């Protein structure tokens, strides 16, 4: 459950090839100037880029780099500086020359931007979490949240949403998630009032996660349905939302919707977010099994996921064959995996599906079969297998899982002719849904494109060209006129 959290933070494996000599500090300074311009020109885009760049630098952060960066951007005597430096250990002194170099060029920051201050908090928090100093991280994040509550600037939103995330993460790591639920709700409210949609998204996800952590599915669903809706801003947050939504719906037995959400989440997630995609796939597989579908083999053979999805693969296999015995064995064998994945209760629900799949196989293979044989094939080892089989078959017929009739007198199950699926509308519908998906994707991609302003207008150069052409034409005509005389 914890891997998926980090889905985009792992996105950039640190390339140790490029030596850190051009200095992480230099990069940080560039980022700081990026934030500054972003805040002055009110362009959130720049700040979002700054945050992305920071994540790329994450592996290279060291105590000395951060402390010299803090010295650079914050006034040394200031309150923020004192607070933040307290979190940074001062014991490493092997990068003295960096320190010296920076102190030389240090310019007294006359006016500290709130964006920069918040950014410093984020940096320190990242560092603390990476150093596994969770209690300090908790303190640091709480301090930053207090600061954020009183700050109403749209340019801070991007950094703030990251801070919310790590705030929740640091509490989750120490197992105190319940403590901050009230706080998160309050923050969510504030974000709604300030029309900070990115913050709302992030906080809603954090709240859902918080509820789901304690299996409070009902409350999660109520919050989700009551919270204001809007167009998604961040793809990552939207993925997470879909994932939580899928989970809630699975628990509430809305499998079709759940499948849609989970598959969409898996598809939308960035390639690098392997852990998250594995989780999505696990849940998607179970939901599809519960729906009576058999996932394709390729699902389990995706690169980097074979091992993690192995138990589910075998589970699917059992369901596909409809072998109850095998199913039971597998469920026992991987019991620990399933319980850490918190899918165990769903697997219990699956047993029913295994039986049904088996039944379907039987009904396809045999046009007429006795109930005793059915019981034997399904390996129903109960006291009265035939009666069991009869009830199971009748229920399956009523649910529409198989197309057959029961001959109670003779104890037979008579299957009807199975039609050719290609003669129905089914392929057309499937095809249609795929086309719709592609078109939708295309439209979204087009909408996400950014065009430089005024490209549709004629540039000065083109205009000059056109005018020149016109002049030449005019001259030409004039000359022709002259020729006529």
């Amino acid at each position: 459950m914890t891997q998926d959290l980090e889905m985009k933070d792992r996105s950039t494996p640190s390339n140790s090839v490029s030596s850190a000599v051009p200095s992480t500090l230099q990069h940080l300074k560039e980022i700081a100037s990026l934030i500054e311009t972003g805040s002055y020109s009110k362009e959130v885009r720049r700040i979002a880029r700054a945050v992305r760049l920071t994540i790329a630098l994450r592996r290279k952060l060291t105590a000395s780099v951060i402390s010299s960066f803090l010295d650079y951007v914050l006034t040394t005597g200031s309150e923020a500086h004192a607070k933040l430096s307290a979190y940074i250990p001062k014991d490493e002194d092997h990068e003295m020359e960096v320190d010296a170099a920076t102190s030389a060029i240090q310019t007294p920051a006359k006016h500290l931007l709130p964006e920069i201050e918040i950014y410093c908090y984020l940096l320190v928090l990242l560092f603390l979490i990476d150093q596994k100093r969770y209690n300090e991280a908790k303190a640091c994040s709480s301090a930053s949240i207090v600061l954020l509550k009183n700050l109403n600037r749209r340019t801070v939103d991007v950094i703030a949403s990251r801070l919310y995330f790590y705030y929740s993460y640091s509490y989750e790591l120490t197992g105190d998630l319940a403590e901050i639920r009230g706080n998160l709700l309050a923050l969510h409210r504030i974000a709604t009032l300030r029309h900070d949609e990115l913050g709302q998204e992030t906080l809603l996800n954090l709240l859902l996660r918080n509820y789901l952590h304690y299996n409070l599915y009902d409350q999660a669903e109520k919050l989700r349905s009551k919270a204001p809706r809007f167009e998604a801003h961040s793809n990552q947050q939207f993925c997470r939302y879909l994932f939580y939504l899928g989970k809630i719906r699975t628990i509430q037995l809305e499998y079709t919707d759940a499948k849609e959400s989970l598959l969409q989440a898996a598809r939308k997630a960035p390639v690098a977010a392997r852990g998250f995609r594995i989780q999505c796939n696990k849940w998607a597989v179970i939901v599809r099994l519960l729906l009576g579908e058999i996932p394709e083999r390729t699902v389990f053979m995706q690169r980097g996921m074979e091992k993690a999805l192995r138990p589910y693969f075998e589970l699917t296999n059992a369901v596909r064959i409809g072998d109850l015995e095998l199913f039971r064995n597998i469920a026992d064998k991987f019991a620990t995996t399933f319980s850490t994945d918190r899918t165990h209760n769903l697997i219990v629900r699956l047993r029913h599906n295994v039986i049904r799949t088996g039944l379907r196989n039987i009904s396809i293979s045999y046009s007429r079969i006795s109930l005793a044989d059915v019981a034997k094939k399904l390996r129903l080892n109960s006291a009265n297998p035939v009666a069991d089989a009869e009830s199971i078959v009748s229920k399956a017929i009523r649910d529409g899982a198989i197309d057959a009739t029961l001959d109670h007198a003779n104890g037979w199950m008579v299957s009807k002719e199975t039609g050719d699926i290609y003669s129905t509308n089914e392929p057309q519908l499937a095809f249609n849904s795929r086309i719709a998906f592609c078109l939708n994707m295309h439209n979204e991609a087009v909408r996400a494109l950014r065009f430089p302003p005024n490209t549709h207008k004629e540039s000065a150069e083109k205009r000059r060209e056109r005018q020149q052409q016109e002049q030449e034409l005019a001259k030409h005509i004039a000359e022709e006129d002259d020729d006529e005389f």
Partner: protein
Amino acid sequence: MATTLVSSAGGMLAMLNESHLSLKLHALSNLNNLVDTFWPEISTSVPLIESLYEDEEFDQHQRQLAALLVSKVFYYLGELNDSLSYALGAGPLFNVSEDSDYVHTLLAKAIDEYASLKTKAAESSESVTVDPRLEAIVERMLDKCIVDGKYQQAMGTAIECRRLDKLEEAITRSDNIQGTLSYCIYVSHSFVNLREYRQEVLRLLVKVYQKLPSPDYLSICQCLMFLDEPEGVASILEKLLRSENKDDALLAFQIAFDLVENEHQAFLLNVRDRLAPPKSQSSTSTQAKPNDIGSEQNATASGPDDVQMTEGDSASVVSVPEDPSETLYAERLTKIKGILSGETSIQLTLQFLYSHNKSDLLILKTIKQSVEMRNSVCHSATIYANAIMHAGTTVDTFLRENLDWLSRATNWAKFSATAGLGVIHRGHLQQGRSLMAPYLPQGGTGGGGSPYSEGGALYALGLIHANHGEGIKQFLRDSLRSTSVEVIQHGACLGLGLASLGTADEDIYEEIKNVLYTDSAVAGEAAGISMGLLMVGTGSDKANEMLTYAHETQHEKIIRGLALGIALTVYGREEEADTLIEQMTRDQDPILRYGGMYALALAYRGTANNKAIRQLLHFAVSDVSDDVRRTAVLALGFVLYSDPEQTPRIVSLLSESYNPHVRYGAALAVGISCAGTGLSEAISLLEPLTSDVVDFVRQGALIAMAMVMVQISEASDSRVGTFRRQLEKIILDKHEDTMSKMGAILASGILDAGGRNVTIRLLSKTKHDKITAVVGLAVFSQFWYWYPLIYFISLAFSPTAFIGLNYDLKSPKFEFLSHAKPSLFEYPKPTTVPTTTSAVKLPTAVLSTSAKAKARAKKAEEQKANAEISSESASVASGTGKGKSSSEKDGDAMQVDSPVDKKSEPEPSFEILTNPARVVPAQEKFIKFMQDSRYVPVKLAPSGFVLLKDLRPSEPEVLSLTDTPSSTTSAAGGSAAGLQSSASAMAVDEEPQPPQPFEYTS
């Protein structure tokens, strides 16, 4: 009650269903504490809690608790309306002073709600019942603001909520009443959209002002003027004039000048008439005083003698009262009447424009030479350009030098050529008649004068006396009455309309109406416009009369004239005009719809009213007639001129329309609303349009660009230089279309308008609309149909001058600082001689004359420079500094002697200006007054007329600006002296006698 221990509110919710009351109460109070965390859960049970609130069995407290809970849940759900209504139901439990987001949000909501209710109540005039609880909350908030010293918030909210009582309280209780009052005036002008309500607010402000121990009379009078209450202004002025203190008199003069700047003629006349005459005057003067207008009119009517006579007349009225204080008063009264009638300011402006004239005749020469002889459009365009370039300077050198060339103008071209003299001599009140005398219709003698030049002369008289036509009205009326030639009627109607702008004189109206009813197309068009001019801003019933006739007549010209006239009558009436606008915009006739666009534009001028903008944009894209669409876009410029930054944004899409008419309208809209601002976005928008594929769009864009760039120097925006070169190129280009060529010629006229000492300004410094300027531009934009209307643009010109005046209304020598590089605001460099040689393609004959002219120009310039230097040294020696600032003079002299020297000097970062000085609008923020100066301005205004307080009255005063265009002959000072025109005024005395007034030979 540790909330963390509970993981669900389900239990409490279940308890609500219990039958026992105390259980329910317990559940409610617990839920109220838990709601922050468990609102998603509680929200499902809202109907249940609502029923508890309505339950009669419950006691008051419990029901209120239920209401509070429901309110909070609704707040979390984002349903602020429901939340507010339940919060009101919660009564005292809803704690206003609680510091939580919930309370803050709901309070904001409550104020919004209250404001919208009050506005609705005021607008629909039916009684909307406002929840008393809501009112109580809002009042509590207002009181809290006032107690906390947040007066601006309190005032803003009070205005929004239409609580004038609270507004008054906020103002009177604030610690800086003057500051809050001026803030309040600003707010009421910029944020109160409804005219009537704004008047209410202003009336209140005046009331508060008057209660103050030391009232700010300048502001009061501005308010009173907006309210159209001349009595109040008159009594204030009188009080100030009667004061012993000289400073009070200065203040009164300053007020008068500020009022005059707003160009509200009818109001000013009213004020003037209400000023009480001195008590102990001799009987003759008491009689003469109150009937000032009458006497003047009589004087003019009595004979064809000079208008100056009447001026002298009114000045000489001051007789010899015995009481010294009355003498003082009488003396001051004369002065202030002079100011209020506009004569003083017009005269001073004229002096300024004359003495500072820096127009560049070489530009005109280039135009003249490059324009083909046969092309009458460009020929008259050149004449227009000349008139605009010299507007108000009285310098008609160019015309006098090119009499032959000028005589090519025939028929209507001759009409406008003659009318052009009116623009050049604009404001030359005393000499106007005698200047135009040769062209005026000679009563009875039946002289050979062409009706075109006679009509033009009458129009010219109107232009000279625009908005100050007391002296000339009678003459124009007589001329109108005594002629039946439609061309002369045309000119007389226009002239009369201009001269009696906005006076709503019934007699004149009837006379013009008679002309209209002759149903002659030419005269009728002018009559229609003229009626509008006469009735401008009165919103009178006459509009309906005009509309009826517009439906009756067959002549398009008359309909168009009337349509514009109707539009003019509703000037500034905002909502009052809505019925008429509706009527016009729904008309079958596109010309009347077109008038409807103008009516929208003028009724909502400068208000940036959203409704008007929406309507105009709708017509701009949906009307079937191109004319209407063009005008609709153009009208946006008028609606938005108070907020010029908005216009380019709003019309940017329209400027890319496929329809050239819409593009043209967009160009002019930008030109009108951004006139004189040099706004970068406006220029960027117009730039591509100046090379549009359609010729008339190019024309519009060039003119608009010139309007935007007027008085912007190349140093502050390099695109000005590019534009000048572009204009020159278009004018010289043989293949260019006539339309755009005409645009370029007019543009070069506007760019260098008024000897470069004027800008186009639609708002006065106190943010009032300058009615003459707006009307001028509105009629100007009609030049699409009728070229002579181009001259109306001169109404929009306002001189960019700082003119400091002492108690005697003379400008003393006074220096102040412009804290910016001089090059930023200097005059454009005179075009150099080589530009003329670039016109190589011209026939040789022309070349030789130009060469000669060149030589002459050079020689003249040198002579003049020498003369100037000598005269300067003489004047310095004698201790009487003449008009120009010494630094400027140095620069000029140096340029003649050795231009290289000047370049090597590093540019100073400031400049010392000498009263009166040219201060362009962009420069205003750099103006500083010196600390140790002898004079202190009464009002710290960086430009315009400013009264100066003399701190050392005992010392002899040194006056500047002694030269005036005193007589016809000297003003007409022709010959080469004006050619290079740098400080031509200096050399006036040395000039040879000019030729006699000319007449057309044709």
